[in-house]
């Protein structure tokens, strides 16, 4: 979706301000949000792209004004309510009004050391790769209202396939419950001028990780 989350190239957000000696979490509630997210993800309630899509759908003013973990918390609430795992009335009341539903599995403390990593997104290919390193490609000019990982600034642009990264779960379908539909993934390299015009930093090159359905020969 063409939301405010898709920030590449936007103006007006100001300077990058790094915090000295920044802690991993800034408060106890951030710790709990992070841990709840990991635990519920482990239980198979949602996949990473569904979680991303939930955050992208937050109203733009909420998205921009919320801290990072607040977005996570609001996204989780949205997903839990939409999936029927918890009621909005329960979250408002802070207590359970109906029994829980059975989940695939439940994360235990003993299992945590084995989950301190991301999941695996590689899948067996369904067909041979359409492109190879060195091929010129043009990204499609698509504007789906649903989740996609093709950023706006890199749509309709010509680049070069730099590397083939294997076959992966396709975010655009899995995020909306239409299955993993694994697709070949490529690193596509663009010249700065192709993306930003003649005033681009002369030496700049930018790459995206692009799924095959985003690309056509150029």
């Amino acid at each position, binding site marked *: 979706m063409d939301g405010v*989350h898709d920030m590449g190239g936007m103006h007006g957000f100001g300077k990058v*301000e790094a915090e000295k000696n920044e802690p991993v979490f800034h408060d106890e509630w951030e710790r709990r949000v992070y841990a709840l997210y990991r635990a519920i993800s482990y239980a198979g309630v949602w996949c990473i792209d569904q979680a991303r899509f939930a955050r992208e759908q937050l109203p733009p003013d909420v998205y921009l004004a919320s801290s990072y973990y607040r977005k996570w918390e609001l996204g989780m609430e949205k997903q839990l309510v939409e999936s029927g795992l918890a009621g909005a009335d329960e979250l408002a009341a802070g207590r359970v009004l109906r029994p829980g539903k059975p989940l695939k599995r439940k994360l235990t403390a003993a299992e945590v050391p084995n989950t301190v990593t991301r999941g695996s997104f590689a899948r067996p290919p369904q067909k041979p790769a359409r492109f190879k390193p060195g091929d010129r490609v043009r990204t499609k000019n698509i504007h789906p209202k649903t989740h996609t990982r093709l950023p706006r600034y890199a749509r309709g642009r010509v680049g070069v396939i730099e590397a083939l990264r294997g076959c992966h779960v396709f975010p655009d379908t899995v995020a909306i419950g239409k299955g993993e539909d694994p697709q070949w993934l490529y690193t596509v390299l663009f010249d700065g001028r192709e993306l930003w015009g003649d005033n681009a930093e002369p030496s700049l090159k930018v790459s*995206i990780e692009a799924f095959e359905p985003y690309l056509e020969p150029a």
Partner: protein
Amino acid sequence: MAEKHEHTHDHSEHGSELSEMQLRVRALETVLTEKGYVDPAALDAIIEAYETKVGPHVGARVVAKAWSDPSFKQALLEDGTKAVLALGAINRVGDHLIAVENTPKLHNMIVCTLCSCYPWEVLGLPPVWYKSAPYRSRAVNDPRGVLADFGVTLPADTAIRVWDSTAETRFIVLPMRPATTEGWSEEKLASLVTRDSMIGTGFPKQPAEVA
């Protein structure tokens, strides 16, 4: 690394968001626990892992090894996942960790313009600035300006390559080894490696800074 951050109720910098969020999160955790979806002990273990075990010290070890051992460096650049696993720095890494090498002619920078993708396995959780709108918006079209915000100036003839992490591949920058560190142990070299140098928004420390 992270210090334990004591929980207080009146953090002025968070203002009213804090109290609202404390209440919301407490309600959420209570509901998910009572529903039987989450085990509070597992939550504590997750927090502990990310505050104490996973962090930029892991990546620093990888970089120091690459600086010291040419065959490891080659293996790292060929297949980051396999090389880091073989190093035993961590027990698992994501499927696709890709190490990209800085040279006098090329400087690499990592960003995720769409959300906050970051190589957790080797750098821990991302700092706030990495997830912020200024960084996500400007890294891809004004990388020298972003570097200036960090007080970093690249030579004019060093080209810039920005990697936008738009899929589940993850990137770590292999920074250039500082001069006058010949004969240093891997451990001592690792003390030069900053988190920002592995994202591409900084350089490693100079030897004098850790001597």
